[in-house]
């Protein structure tokens, strides 16, 4: 039984249809990558799941329909999104950002445990706890954005372009982290433009173009597929090399 399932999802921005009758499933414990070129509708799909973009169609999370619900209610069900561009609260300190991540939690002891875990994953966040988040580097802000999301102890984490705008070695760190999160039992739906890196960590993947899923399957198969290679010249170049 899938943890998250989308069926017949449509998202319209005025006259433009950004997502067309999209079906997608994420099983518990999986990392699923959602790939595609710029403007394919990947980020819009994530926004629709968390209720930040108006959508029609069915969205089920942990057996409950969450379509049309308010963002805050959806998040309270145990799923959250790390938005594209990190979007930490810049004038709030690192500690305050993390505290807001746990805003809905009632048990202070459990929240404190989460904070310790997040600080073990990202030691720099403990070092800079009292610094305004806006003064962190891009990579540190991405760590904070992910740490802040983890503070809510989600069952499902939606990651929107976590590698965007980061230096290559920091991108490697982020993908290592995604694997570590998976090892801890977190389910992840990952939107990425860096298809190679995403397919390396994902179990399965979907490829989008013009708002539709054009193919899907196990990550290893997609990596070998010529169709993906054609969609992603980057892979073709690497395979040829």
């Amino acid at each position, binding site marked *: 039984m899938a943890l998250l399932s989308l069926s017949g999802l449509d998202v319209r921005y005025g006259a433009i249809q950004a997502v067309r009758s999209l079906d997608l499933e994420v099983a518990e414990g999986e990392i699923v990558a959602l790939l595609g070129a710029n403007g394919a509708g990947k980020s819009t799909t994530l926004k629709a799941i*968390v209720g*930040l973009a108006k959508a029609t169609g069915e969205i089920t999370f942990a057996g409950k329909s969450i379509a049309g619900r*308010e*963002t*805050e209610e959806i*998040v*309270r069900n145990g799923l*959250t*999104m790390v*938005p594209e561009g990190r*979007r930490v*609260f*810049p*004038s*709030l300190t690192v500690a*305050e950002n993390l*505290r*807001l*991540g746990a*805003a*809905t939690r009632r048990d202070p002891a459990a929240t404190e445990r989460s904070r310790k875990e997040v600080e073990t994953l990202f030691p720099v966040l403990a070092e800079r706890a009292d610094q305004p988040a806006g003064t962190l580097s891009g990579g540190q802000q991405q760590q904070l954005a992910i740490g*802040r999301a983890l503070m*809510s102890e989600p069952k499902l984490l939606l990651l929107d372009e976590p590698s965007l705008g980061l230096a290559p070695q920091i991108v490697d760190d982020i993908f290592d982290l995604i694997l570590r999160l998976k090892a801890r039992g977190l389910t992840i739906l990952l939107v990425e433009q860096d298809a190679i890196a995403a397919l390396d960590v994902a179990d399965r993947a979907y490829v989008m173009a013009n708002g539709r899923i054009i193919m899907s399957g196990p990550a290893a198969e997609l990596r070998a597929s010529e169709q993906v290679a054609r969609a992603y010249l980057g892979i073709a170049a690497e395979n040829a090399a």
Partner: protein
Amino acid sequence: MIGYFVEQTGNALSLGGIYALLALGLAVVYSILGLINFAHGALMTLTGYVLVGAAVYGLPFLIAAPLAIVIVMASAVLLERIAFRPVRGASGATMLLTSFAVAVLLQLAFQLFISTRPQIVPLPDMLTATLDIGGLAIGVNRVISVVVAVLVLIALNQFLKRTIIGLAMRAAAEDFDVTRLMGIRANRVIAAAFALSGLLAGIAAILWMAQRSSVDPLMGLVPVLKAFIATTLGGLGSLQGAVLGGLLLGAIEIYLAAYLPDAMLPYQGALTLGVVILVLVARPQGLVGARREAAR
């Protein structure tokens, strides 16, 4: 000479403190919703009428004042629910006009159902007494204004730093959607912002009336216009800016009134605005430049 200056500085702090509280009330709401709430003045006026009404029922001031503040906080939340929620996310102009409409409606209601004439606000003698400090006559109301404003600013700062709802309000001012992604209910943050603005309006109104002892349907209009100037001066949407702008505006007004030659006194208002314009020409974003646009 020095005595006069000290006295005027006391006046400047007391007036500036009230402006700062009012400007903060406007800024708290504006920073989250992009709404400039001109009905804020009506909340001040309402505070006065509750005090008048409470006196009719024989309630002592120390009970009537907190009661008035609670009623004003509840009214601010109610205003949001009835008038501002339907236009949430609309353009700035739509929200501005809505707030004007609410302000005018409330003024008319005060005129129709209470009176167009000023009502005496009964204040304890303590508030109207004068202290003699080293030969300087300083009104107790001025001292209380300054002390209360400082205490409120300290408490507000703690509230915004220590409580989840305070943090959520600051976060919502920076990124409303992401605040909701934290599972924080949008309506609750906005209601809290209005309650806080009501609290600040109520306190400011009591301090304002302590220096005037009467309330009329238009009482809140001028101070809120001043508070709006103060928020613009400090930087719209910035809470520090609101405080700074309020204090600065109070100081400009009082010192001009104190030191202008008599022949120039009629121009005090124009000169005050002239100084404000000069500051804004040099720093269009206000003294504490605030980024940000309105929440959806």
